[in-house]
């Protein structure tokens, strides 16, 4: 089942912060975040495994709340280069809580626009 992303679109000025959320009605094993610029292929940002970890690099970080089956992507002090569409990809957990061998279902995307 497709995860739900919110908001659908965000408009920022350089230096502002944003949060993008991804929710699933199914138990998840992992959540992946990708960014896609217009006319290009999606590019991997980070992966979070169940266990409630938080990860980040540079000014982009993410968290995974296993109990709520939600993940959030945090973009701080946004730059023009952050503009693009952000997708979460979710991997469902098996009945035993294990991996479903990497099969991802992607959300509908959040369009992020950063203005000077």
């Amino acid at each position, binding site marked *: 089942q*497709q995860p739900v992303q919110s908001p659908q679109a965000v408009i920022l000025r350089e230096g502002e912060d944003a949060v993008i959320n991804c929710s699933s009605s199914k138990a998840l*094993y*992992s959540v*992946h975040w990708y960014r896609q610029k217009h006319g*290009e*292929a*999606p*590019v*991997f940002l980070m*992966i979070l*495994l169940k266990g409630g970890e938080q990860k980040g690099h540079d000014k982009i970080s993410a968290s995974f709340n296993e109990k709520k089956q939600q993940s959030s992507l945090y973009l701080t002090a946004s730059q023009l280069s952050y503009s693009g569409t952000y*997708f979460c*990809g979710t*991997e469902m957990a098996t009945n035993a809580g294990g*991996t479903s*061998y*990497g*099969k*991802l*279902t*992607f*959300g*509908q*995307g959040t369009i992020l626009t950063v203005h000077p």
Partner: protein
Amino acid sequence: NAGVTQTPKFRILKIGQSMTLQCTQDMNHNYMYWYRQDPGMGLKLIYYSVGAGITDKGEVPNGYNVSRSTTEDFPLRLELAAPSQTSVYFCASSYWTIRSAKNIQYFGAGTRLSVL
């Protein structure tokens, strides 16, 4: 490194024609995927493969066929093209093992297909 290479980049088909979208990867990845992305939408999984000789259906397999005779290649066949198959097609690959269970997918540049 070439990564994931897709050909052609663009194609226009007439209704009822057939064609094969080519995908090859040079990263020795065991998993390969085909997605379609309709305008303003997320990625939908068409077919995937966990290794040479093994393929399985994704969310939207109707009207498509795949084969995986080698680790490197994963062609997608469209039979009897229909306007509903107008989309951008992305091939992706990943290296997945039960030990790491981190399915980081690397995408090709995409094939833009119009069926008229």
